[in-house]
């Protein structure tokens, strides 16, 4: 590979508190050779490829901690190739994939398959999760040790929660010894039974069973209580309400160590967007009140929430063109993750650096991977974007195999221009 130099870039890399106009040099092995304002182009030979970024922003490639890839079993919704294309078009270079495939990734042979298949077909860094419990039934823990040894990054039952407290206690106890990452979906089934959307005025008017914020809060309280006894690496996949955030605030102030994620959807939309039964906005956890949305944004600002995820969940038309209660849950979002997050910068809700931090170095630290940074010597996974370019989201223009975007026709500001993976230009708008 030829050496490359990216010049005239506004480099934002929260992992080294960098926000300056400068250059970045990628060596022959696709690693960051030099970075910063002091690099002189004249030091490099004519054979070095030059990219003039014209003062656009350069950040570490985004690390998305939650996305569904349809393989195996749901190739009609998404596959490694289409997910990679969507990710690269969104500046995402590393993806944690969920294990809710068919069959479910809960044993070693499945891991071997997924890693081989990913290596052959994907053009992004993949970090597969295995399920927390066998068949995601919430009863028997999976082989945390063996699965980790084969390359599993963390354990999650995705949209399912271990309901039994004793089982959860044992999982955390066992995991604390091995040092594996537990990623919990927080939902009490009895309280959320048959629920479709947030419990409130909209659910009353639409005649849909609501999901109270208590269903989320009670599991967070339970797990954090267990965490005092069994201090393992514990991550809450997504929260959705102010009440959950209050619990997290109290526990973090008491010094308890755990991490928290939020979906870009819950930061950008509220229950009113569901309108007249728009099934693309049926999400889990559900969209809640505007007040909850604002609290979550504050939570990011105050370091109570560590990461923003796309919660990319491709669903085909058949799964969504149904009466709301029967419709599938989830929306695609990996390609629009950064542009939608930039909305929070443009409307002055969040500082730009904080947004980038939650998308790059924070997830990498939680996952303990050497990504999300452009320090000298790290892999040159890079996203370049125009902060101000306006565009309109159109589902049929998105690269994902499924078109269930929750933000069709939304006017966004901020466009991905280039994505490099290991120093190679993989996406160029």
């Amino acid at each position, binding site marked *: 590979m030829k050496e490359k130099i990216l010049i005239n870039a506004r480099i934002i890399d929260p992992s080294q508190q960098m926000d300056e106009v400068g250059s970045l040099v990628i060596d022959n092995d696709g690693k960051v050779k030099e970075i910063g304002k002091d690099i002189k182009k004249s030091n490099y030979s004519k054979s070095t490829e030059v990219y003039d970024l014209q003062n656009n922003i350069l950040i570490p490639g985004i690390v998305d901690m939650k996305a569904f890839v349809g393989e195996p079993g749901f190739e009609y919704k998404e596959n490694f190739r289409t997910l990679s294309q969507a990710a690269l078009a969104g500046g995402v270079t590393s993806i944690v994939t969920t294990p809710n495939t068919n069959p479910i990734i809960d044993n070693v042979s499945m891991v071997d398959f997924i890693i081989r298949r990913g290596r052959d077909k994907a053009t992004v860094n993949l970090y597969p999760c295995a399920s927390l419990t066998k068949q995601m039934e919430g009863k028997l823990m999976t082989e945390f040790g063996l699965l980790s040894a084969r390359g599993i990054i963390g354990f999650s039952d995705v949209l399912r929660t271990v309901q039994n407290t004793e089982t959860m206690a044992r999982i955390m106890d066992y995991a604390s010894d091995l040092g594996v990452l537990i990623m919990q979906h927080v939902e009490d089934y009895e309280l959320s039974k048959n629920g479709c959307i947030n419990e409130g005025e909209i659910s009353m*008017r639409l*005649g849909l069973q609501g999901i109270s914020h208590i269903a989320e809060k009670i599991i967070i309280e339970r797990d954090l209580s267990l965490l005092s006894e069994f201090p393992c690496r514990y991550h809450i996949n997504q929260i959705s309400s102010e009440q959950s955030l209050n619990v997290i605030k109290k526990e973090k102030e008491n010094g308890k160590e755990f991490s928290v994620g939020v979906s870009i959807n819950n930061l950008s939309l509220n229950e009113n967007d569901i309108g007249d039964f728009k099934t693309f906005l049926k999400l889990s956890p559900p969209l809640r009140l505007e007040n909850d949305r604002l609290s979550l944004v504050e939570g990011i600002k105050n370091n109570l929430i560590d990461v923003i995820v796309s919660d990319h969940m491709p669903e085909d038309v058949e799964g969504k063109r149904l009466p709301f209660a029967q419709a599938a849950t989830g929306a695609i979002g990996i390609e629009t993750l950064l542009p939608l997050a930039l909305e929070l910068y443009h409307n002055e809700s969040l500082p730009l650096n904080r947004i980038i931090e939650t998308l790059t170095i924070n997830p990498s630290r939680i996952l303990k991977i050497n990504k999300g940074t452009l320090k000298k010597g790290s892999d040159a996974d890079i996203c370049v974007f125009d902060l101000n370019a306006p565009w309109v989201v159109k589902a049929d223009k998105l690269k994902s195999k499924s078109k269930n975007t929750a933000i069709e026709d939304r006017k966004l500001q901020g466009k991905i221009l280039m994505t490099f993976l290991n120093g190679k230009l993989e996406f160029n708008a």
Partner: protein
Amino acid sequence: MAVINKTSAIKSSTKHLLGIQNLSIQEAKRILDEAKTFIKLNRSKSKKLDLLRGKTQINLFFEPSTRTQSSFDLAGKRLGADVMTMNMSNSALKKGETLIDTAMTLNAMHPDLIVIRHQDSGAPNLLSQKVNCSVINAGDGRREHPTQALLDALTIINRKGKIEGLKIAICGDILHSRVARSNIYLMNMLGAEVNVVAPKTLMPKSIDRLGVKSFTDMKKGLDSCDIVMMLRLQNERMQGSFLPSKREYYEYFGLSPDKLKFASKDALIMHPGPMNRGVEIDTKLADDINVSLVKEQVELGVAVRMACLKLYCK
């Protein structure tokens, strides 16, 4: 034969009757005025008109129903339409056909009206996006039952002359009731003051947002009300999940002569049926022709549905 005015159909932007929430006050009054003209017809010897001759009406019932289904059936036939009733609880849907596919199939047969009852809220809205004819909601999940509210309004107007200024109490399982929702919207729209009465577990938490006063004490909720609407309490709600027992429910929320005394002196009782006698309503009260409008509701239901079919048919 009664004289029927030649009136044009409801304006094209409101092709479907999906709920009271989507209805303007003019449209609601229009349906009620139209329905009044059918009351006399339905009481006369020759009840058949040819207003909808050559039109096809499909009744699509995904949920079992006796009175609503027969009422729509009869209404269509009295207007001269060809009526086909499909009982979907044991049909193609069980073979895995989706609502959309069923809609497309029926649409290919060129119906002019589809009347739908479905257990899922919003199903009529979905159907209406996929067919060329008018869709009338005959009850969806716990969202709306617009023709029930309209027939209730007609029944009240028939007895009290008007709705504006009346005080109406709606009592029972508000949480799960589409009848309650549609009635709250319609009675509010027509100028009544609405009280809702329910045990806390059967009351939606955001009910105040609908412009009603909520009560857990029935005596306070009925205070000086002109109309007392009772709702059906389904059996599965009574066995400890929402309420401790039938006995306790009747004690605090069943309509008895004692509790009725708190309402206005000439208060009238309504119930959408079918009734659980001795659970939500005292059996003698239910049959007392001086206070109970239950039979009249059923009778006027046909008139209201005739009006809806006529106005929404293209």
